[in-house]
């Protein structure tokens, strides 16, 4: 177990955005293969994320599930009015997960979950047309969560949940304006760097058997809002290539900064139907409370704590829904085949389309399988293709030094695919 954890930590790199906002919907290979459903599916330890109330229903005493994904995401931008175009670097994100449960008694189980529900890596060519909004950004949040699962009413109703320790970090670079440079023409820019910020939250779930034949299940899960607050001293902001002048907004050098980024609350209701041993169908409805993300406001602080410069970036996200559908077919005891689809509604509103999270509505197509090597071990594999429509969008709230806003417009097209592999173990 210890070895597994250390390997896990080694490969724990941040993930790439590929869901609404900076939500990363890759929390289990089995679930993803079924459209990332799972609130009402009792399958393996992935329940620790999807609905801890179900952990107590797993047949075995010990259940482990670990895996990861390779996320290949790219965003293309163009503006036909001015002939500008840019594509993000081909960064491969590798979000990973680790879940475990231990059945203490017939109606009580404990669990542990480590996962990366939020993150984003977007890297544009330095000094591209939108570089005053973002050159590159790397956001990450790792959740570590101890869990309990308790069957309150035998064969009928269980609940589960636990506290979340969130570990957040951000690295962000952008140019200070559309045209400020030093004397040699190098664009003035700022880099924000903060990591290891600890915050707390919680999640709770419930699972209800709707009939006595174990065919219909109804699940519910809620994960709380976590505000990642960067306080003075948590990180540093470095200004570079600022011209040597008191007329510049800020001098070169390193400053403390404060900022706040919400990791929104999310609740999910799901229904599963298992007509026989071969088939399983699942439907989940997600509702993410993105309206918590009103604005990304950064205060750069002088040594005496006074504000040297303020950066106000309205985001005005709206709450957003995701509709998930999945099916599983088991031709034999050795193999489970899965298919899924989801529609992911973007929380970004018209006029607030900032290139650091260039996400519009998307359609996710998923598939995958589990191959049971033996009674204990199984290999889980999945594949996601996320399809985005081309979108003409703008961010209308960049304010010039003269106080006028200068909208940043263009056409965006994103593409994401992600193969994943994992292992499940039961004892």
């Amino acid at each position, binding site marked *: 177990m210890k070895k597994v954890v250390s390997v896990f930590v080694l490969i724990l790199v941040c993930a790439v955005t590929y869901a609404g906002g900076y939500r990363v919907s890759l929390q289990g290979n089995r679930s993803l293969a079924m459209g990332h459903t799972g609130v009402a599916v009792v399958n393996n330890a992935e329940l620790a994320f999807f609905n801890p109330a179900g952990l107590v229903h797993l047949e075995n005493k010990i259940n482990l599930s670990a895996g990861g994904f390779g996320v290949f995401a790219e965003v*293309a931008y163009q503006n036909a009015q001015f002939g500008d175009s840019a594509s993000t670097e081909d960064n491969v994100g590798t979000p990973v997960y680790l879940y475990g449960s231990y059945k203490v008694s017939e109606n009580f189980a404990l669990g542990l979950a480590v996962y990366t529900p939020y993150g984003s890596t977007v890297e544009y060519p330095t000094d591209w047309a939108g570089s005053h909004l973002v050159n590159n950004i790397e956001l990450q949040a790792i959740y570590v969560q101890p869990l309990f699962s308790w069957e309150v009413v035998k064969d009928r109703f269980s609940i589960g949940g636990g506290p979340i320790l969130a570990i957040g970090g951000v690295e962000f670079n952008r140019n200070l304006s559309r*045209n400020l440079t030093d004397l040699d023409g190098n664009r003035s820019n700022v880099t924000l760097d903060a990591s290891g910020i600890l915050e707390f939250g919680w999640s709770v779930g419930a699972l209800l058997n709707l009939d006595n034949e174990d065919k219909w299940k109804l699940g519910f899960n809620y994960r709380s809002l976590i505000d990642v607050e960067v306080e003075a001293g948590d990180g540093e902001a470095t200004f570079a290539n600022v011209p040597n002048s008191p007329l510049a907004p800020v001098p070169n050098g390193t400053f403390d900064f404060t900022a706040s980024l919400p990791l929104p609350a999310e609740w999910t209701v799901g229904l599963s139907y298992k007509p026989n041993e071969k088939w399983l169908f699942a439907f989940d409805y997600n509702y993410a409370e993105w309206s918590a993300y009103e604005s990304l406001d950064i205060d750069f602080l002088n040594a005496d704590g006074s504000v040297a410069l303020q950066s106000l970036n309205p985001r005005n996200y709206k709450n957003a829904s995701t509709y998930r559908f999945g099916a599983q077919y088991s031709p034999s005891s050795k193999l489970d085949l899965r298919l899924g689809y989801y529609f992911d509604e973007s929380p970004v509103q018209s006029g607030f389309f900032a290139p650091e999270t260039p996400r519009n509505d998307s359609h996710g197509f998923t598939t995958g399988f589990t191959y049971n090597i033996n009674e204990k071990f199984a290999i889980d594999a999945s594949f996601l293709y996320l399809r985005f429509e081309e979108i003409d969008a703008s961010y209308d709230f960049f304010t010039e030094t003269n106080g006028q806003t200068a909208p940043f417009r263009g056409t965006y097209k994103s593409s994401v695919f992600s193969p994943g592999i994992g292992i499940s173990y039961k004892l």
Partner: protein
Amino acid sequence: MKNYIKYISVLAIGFGFVACEPEFDNPIDENEFYTSGEADFSNYVSIGNSLTAGFADGTLYITGQEDSYPNIMAEQFSLAGGGTFTQPLMNDNIGGLLLGGNPIPGFNPRFVLATDEQGNPGPAIINQTPTTEVSNILSGPFNNVGVPGARSFDLLFPGYGNIGGLTTMPVSANPYFVRFASSPDATVIGDAVSQNPSFFSLWIGNNDILGYATSGGSGVDQTGNFDPSTYGGSDITDPMVFAGAYSQMVDALVANGSDGVLVNIPDVTSIPFFTTVPTQSIPLDAPTAAFLNSNFALYNDVVLPTLVNFGVITAEEAASRAINFEEGVNFPIITDDDLTDVSAILQGPPANLDPATANLLGQLRQANGNDILPLTAAGILGTTINNDPTLINGVSVPLADQFVLTTAEQARVTVAQNAYNTTIQALAAANGLAFADARSALQQVANGGVTFNGGTLTSTFVTGGGFSLDGVHPTPRGYAFTANVLLDAINARYGSNIPGVDIGNFATVTISND
């Protein structure tokens, strides 16, 4: 197991449509989204003066050259078959020139917007040493053959790039062209034509009037003098000389079927060098005004009427020469060399004035609202001479000719400019070339401004965004605007659809306390 493989292959085929790269429906970098129309931008050559070179802040420097309008246009051309565009880059971002390691007088480092001890911003020469050595000849050819300071006929002059001509009296070469002329006896136009351009831009003629205007009309209007080798640097070029030189250049450029764009000459009154210093600029309280008027009473009440009586000047001229100060902001007194010079007469009887007073009154008048004070007057107005509180420039000492562009001088500039512009437009039409009306475009910037994404571009000095700190040459944003004007004209003529640039992405004046 065989079955499993079958199932897995079905799933794999189902995802066969997966695209690795996001693809636009109409990608702008493919499928001739942008076209050059009838034109061919593969080898673009720009010919002109400082404006074409990317001159700004009183000099040439690398970042200014990178934001020259030809370089901006070339980048847009590259969306539709445009090739590489080379420029004779300076050695630094300081500007200024060295010859044999010594600074060349009059070729100073750049202006930057600096702050004084009180934090007040103002243009200042950067406190750094130039490193661009003129004798370090670059090997070309260069697509941008813009030569700062060049007049129309200079482009045809063999030896304009001869380093030996920098030390002759008078100077017969241009140090900027010396740096990259293909040979000592090369002509600018020859170095352009020899590149066999597929497309060219020609913007020349500004300096044929500008030197006269910026020197407050202290040069000579050479209209009628057809020998440009006798012209001084602050003279107005004869329109026939201009037309001859211009058509010779156009003929040479179109000889091999090249397409191109011709650009006309903007009004000097569109640039902040002539619009920043208000003519009415002398604040006086009532006692001071009365005191000054008493000093000029003899001139107003006796000298001027007597000169009229003797038939030396007309009554109309006498009226224009009267001096009258009032409480409030007043027009300065000036020397106007278009007035009758009465200094000799005043030294004789009956006036018998001393030479100093006679010279003071010789061509004296008070400025009026139609006179223009160039930017250079800002440092003179209201200052004292030798710390003598009775010798105040513009108040008790007339502003010298070089600090005033009078109505008569403005008229000479306008007459020549109109003649040049008629020639330019006619030659564009005759040769089927695109014609860019820079004059109208800059009038728009000067009168109310041009809005863009995030602001309004105006010609207001320092803050308007359009003009650099020398008050004459554009900022990068001003050059980007210029590039758009030319691109519009090119698209209209050749049926191309080259996009303009977002001028808000280009810098204005450079702040620095270096």
